[in-house]
C-alpha cells in the first residue's frame, strides 16, 4: 500500500522541535494528513471553534430575552440566530468533538496503529468541515452573491411546510439542507471507519469483552450513526426535490403530509442525541475509575446497558411529536419506549456511583467535572422522564422546560464530560499537564453559570413560555427568570475563556506529563506523550481489561478475576 504522505514525513514531536520548521510546511502537513491523531485534533478544534460561535449566537439571544419587549435584535435576526445556534451546536460543534475524541483515542486504546481506512478518515473530516463552511456561507452571502439570501431561519429541525418554497423564499433553507447533507456523508464515513477499526484492528488478546468501555460506547455510537443519519439524508433529499423539482413529499396542498417530515426527522433526531451522549458516557467511564482507583463497577452490565440504549433509542422518536395529535395508542407506545430507556440509563448512573463507592477519590479537575456530570445528568434524566409522560409533555412540550431539559443533558452532561476528557487526555496529546488552579476556576465558574442559567430556565417553561420567541410581554411574569438565565451566560463564557487560556498556556508552560501521569490502566497510557506517529513500536498483547494494571501489579493481575 503506497504511502499517502510526501517524502518529508514529519514525526509528531515535542513542541520545541515543531517550531523550527517553516509554517507553510507545517500547515501543508496538517492539510494532507491521514493520521488519526491529527485528524482527531482537527475534528476537535473545529468543534470547539463552532462551539464558541454557537455560544456567541446563544449569548445574543439571551441578551435579547433578558428583558421583556426588547429590541436588541429584530425578529428576523433572532429567528436566524436560534436556527443557526441549534444547527451549529449539534452538527458542527458536538459531532466533530465526539468524532475527534473517537478518532484520537480508539486506535490507541485497542493497540492499533491507525484507523482501518486512514484516507477515508481524512475525507470524512473534510466533508464535515465543508458542510460547516457551506452553512455559514449563508450568513455572509447576500441576495446578490449566488442568492444566499442570508442564514436559515426555519429552526434546527426545519418543520415542513415552513421549509416549502411557498414559505421559505430564497436560498437560506437550502444552505441548511446542503450544509448538513454534506457533513452527513462525512459522519457516515467516520462511523464506518470507527466500526471497522474496532471490529478488525484490535490487538491480540483484546476480545470484545476486554475492550475499554470508551471503545464499546463509541461502537454503539458508530452503529447508531450508520442507521440514523440515513433518514435525515433521505428527508433532506426529499425536501430538495420539493423545493427544486416540484415534488410533493411535504406539500400539504397536494395531499402531502407535514407530519411525515417530523417522523423522518425525529427517526434521525432522537438517535442523534444518543450519538452525542454515548461518547460522553465513554469519557466518564474512563475517568471515574482512574480517579476512584477502582475498576468500573459492573463492566458487563455497562456494556449490556449501552447496547440496549442503542436499540431502544431507535424506537422512541415520536416523543418529540406528542402534541401532533397521534392516536392514544401511538402516544402510549412512545411513552412506554421512552420510559423504558430510563432503565439502562439509570443503571449506568448507579454503576458509576458504584465505582466511586469504596474508592479513594482524587479530585483532579477531570474528576470534578465527572461528579458534576453525574448530578446534572441525573436531573436531566428525571426531567426527561417527566417529559416522557405525554400529558406532561402536552403542557410543557415546546416550552422553555424542554429547552432547559435538553441543555441540561447537552451542557450539564455532554459538555462537562468533554471538559473532563480534555483535562484527562490533554497530557497524553500534548505531553504537558494542564494547570489545576485555572482548571478549578473554570470548573466553578462554569458550574455556577450553568446552574444559574439552566436551573432557572425550567421556571418560564412551567409558567407558559414557549420556545423560539424573540420577545415577550412584561405582563406574563417571565422577566425576572429570563434575566437570571441570561446572567448565568456570563459566568459560563468566562469559564470557557479560562479553559481556552489554560489549553494555550499549558502547551508552553505546563509541567511535563510523561507517559502515564494519572497511573491509569488502558493502553493509551503505555506509549509516549504525545504518542509517536505509529502509536506502538510493538503491537501489545493483552490478557485483561486493564493491561497496565496487570503490568503494574504482577502479584494481583486482573486476568485472575475476569
Amino acid at each position: 500500500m503506497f504511502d499517502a504522505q510526501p517524502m518529508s514525513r514529519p514525526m509528531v514531536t515535542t513542541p520545541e522541535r515543531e517550531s523550527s520548521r517553516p509554517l507553510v510546511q507545517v500547515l501543508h502537513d496538517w492539510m494532507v494528513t491521514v493520521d488519526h491523531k491529527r485528524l482527531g485534533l482537527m475534528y476537535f478544534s473545529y468543534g470547539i471553534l463552532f462551539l464558541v460561535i454557537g455560544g456567541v449566537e446563544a449569548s445574543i439571544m439571551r441578551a435579547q430575552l433578558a428583558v421583556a419587549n426588547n429590541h436588541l435584535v429584530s425578529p428576523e435576526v433572532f429567528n436566524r440566530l436560534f436556527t443557526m445556534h441549534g444547527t451549529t451546536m449539534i452538527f458542527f460543534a458536538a459531532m466533530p468533538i465526539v468524532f475527534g475524541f473517537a478518532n484520537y483515542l480508539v486506535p490507541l486504546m485497542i493497540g492499533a496503529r491507525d484507523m482501518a481506512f486512514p484516507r477515508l478518515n481524512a475525507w470524512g473530516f473534510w466533508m464535515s468541515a465543508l458542510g460547516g463552511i457551506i452553512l455559514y456561507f449563508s450568513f455572509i452571502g447576500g441576495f446578490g452573491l449566488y442568492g444566499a439570501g442570508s442564514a436559515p431561519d426555519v429552526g434546527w429541525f426545519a418543520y415542513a411546510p415552513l421549509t416549502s418554497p411557498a414559505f421559505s423564499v430564497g436560498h437560506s433553507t437550502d444552505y441548511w439542507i446542503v450544509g448538513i447533507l454534506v457533513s452527513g456523508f462525512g459522519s457516515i464515513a467516520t462511523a464506518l471507519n470507527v466500526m471497522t477499526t474496532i471490529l478488525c484492528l484490535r490487538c491480540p488478546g483484546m476480545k470484545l469483552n476486554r475492550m475499554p468501555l470508551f471503545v464499546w460506547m463509541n461502537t454503539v455510537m458508530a452503529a447508531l450513526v450508520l442507521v440514523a443519519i440515513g433518514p435525515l439524508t433521505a428527508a433532506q433529499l426529499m425536501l430538495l426535490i420539493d423545493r427544486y423539482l416540484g415534488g410533493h413529499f411535504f406539500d400539504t396542498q397536494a395531499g402531502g403530509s407535514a407530519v411525515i417530515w417530523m417522523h423522518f426527522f425525529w427517526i434521525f433526531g432522537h438517535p442523534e442525541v444518543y450519538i452525542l451522549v454515548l461518547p460522553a458516557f465513554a469519557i466518564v467511564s474512563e475517568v471515574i475509575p482512574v480517579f476512584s482507583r477502582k475498576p468500573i463497577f459492573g463492566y458487563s452490565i455497562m456494556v449490556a446497558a449501552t447496547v440496549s440504549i442503542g436499540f431502544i433509542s431507535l424506537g422512541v422518536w415520536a416523543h418529540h411529536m406528542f402534541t401532533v395529535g397521534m392516536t392514544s395508542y401511538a402516544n402510549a407506545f412512545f411513552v412506554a419506549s421512552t420510559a423504558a430507556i430510563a432503565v439502562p440509563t439509570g443503571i449506568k448512573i448507579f454503576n458509576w456511583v458504584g465505582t466511586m463507592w469504596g474508592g479513594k477519590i482524587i479530585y483532579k479537575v477531570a474528576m470534578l467535572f465527572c461528579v458534576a456530570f453525574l448530578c446534572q445528568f441525573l436531573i436531566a434524566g428525571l426531567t426527561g422522564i417527566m417529559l416522557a409522560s405525554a400529558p406532561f409533555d402536552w403542557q410543557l412540550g415546546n416550552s422553555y422546560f424542554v429547552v432547559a431539559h435538553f441543555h441540561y443533558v447537552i451542557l450539564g452532561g455532554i459538555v462537562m464530560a468533554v471538559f473532563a476528557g480534555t483535562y484527562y487526555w490533554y497530557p497524553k496529546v500534548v505531553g504537558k499537564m494542564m494547570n489545576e488552579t485555572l482548571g478549578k476556576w473554570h470548573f466553578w465558574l462554569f458550574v455556577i453559570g450553568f446552574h444559574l442559567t439552566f436551573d432557572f430556565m425550567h421556571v418560564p417553561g412551567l409558567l407558559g413560555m414557549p420556545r423560539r420567541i424573540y420577545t415577550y410581554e412584561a405582563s406574563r411574569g417571565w422577566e425576572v427568570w429570563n434575566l437570571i438565565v441570561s446572567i448565568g451566560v456570563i459566568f459560563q463564557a468566562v469559564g470557557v475563556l479560562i479553559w481556552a487560556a489554560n489549553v494555550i498556556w499549558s502547551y508552553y508552560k505546563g509541567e511535563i506529563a510523561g507517559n502515564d501521569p494519572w497511573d491509569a490502566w488502558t493502553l493509551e497510557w503505555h506509549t509516549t506523550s504525545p504518542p509517536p506517529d505509529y502509536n506502538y513500536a510493538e503491537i501489545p498483547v493483552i490478557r485483561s481489561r486493564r493491561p497496565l494494571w496487570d503490568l503494574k501489579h504482577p502479584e494481583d493481575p486482573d486476568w485472575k478475576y475476569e
Partner: protein
Amino acid sequence: MPLSANLRGKVGMWCLIIAESAIFSIFVVAYLYYAGKSLSGPTPAQVLDVPYLTSICLFSSSLTILLAEKALHRGNVKRFGFFWFLTIALGVIFLIGTGREWYRLIYKDGLTISTNLFGTTFYSLVGLHAFHVTVGLIGLTIIWLLTLFGAVKQEHSERINVFAMYWHFVDAIWVVVLSVVYFITR
C-alpha cells in the same frame, strides 16, 4: 479474538450497505405511505407495466459478477474480464430500459415528478436506485478498463469481492423496489 484485519474491506462495505439501506428505507416508507393518496393524475395501475426484461437483466448481472469473482479467485483473469463485461452490459440494459420507461411515462402518460404524490415518490425511489446503479456501473467500468490494461490480478480478488458486494446490494434494493412499486401497490 478480533476479526482479522483482512476483513476490513468487507466490514466497511457492510457498514456502507447498512447506511445506504437506511436512506432507501425512508424513500420506500414514503412511497408506501403515499400510495393511493394522490389527489389527481395517473395512478400506478394506469401507467405502470412490470419491467420483466430489465429486472431479469439486473438480477442476472448478480450471477455474472459472482462468476467473475470466482474466476478471479481461481486466477483466470480472462474469464473474469468476460463475466465482468457481461455484468456491465446487463447493467446498462437495465438503465436503458429504465430510461425508456421514464420517457414513455413523461411524454405519453404525462407523469412527472411534480404531477402528483405518485409521481414524486415513484421517480425519487426508482431514480435513487438508478443513481446507485450508475455509480456502480462507473466503478465496474473503471475496473474493467484496468483489467484490459492488465492491472487486475488474482491477488486483487478480495478487493473485487468487496466491490461486488456493493453491486449485489444494488440488486437487493431492486428486489424491494420492484416488489413495492410494481406489485404490492400497483
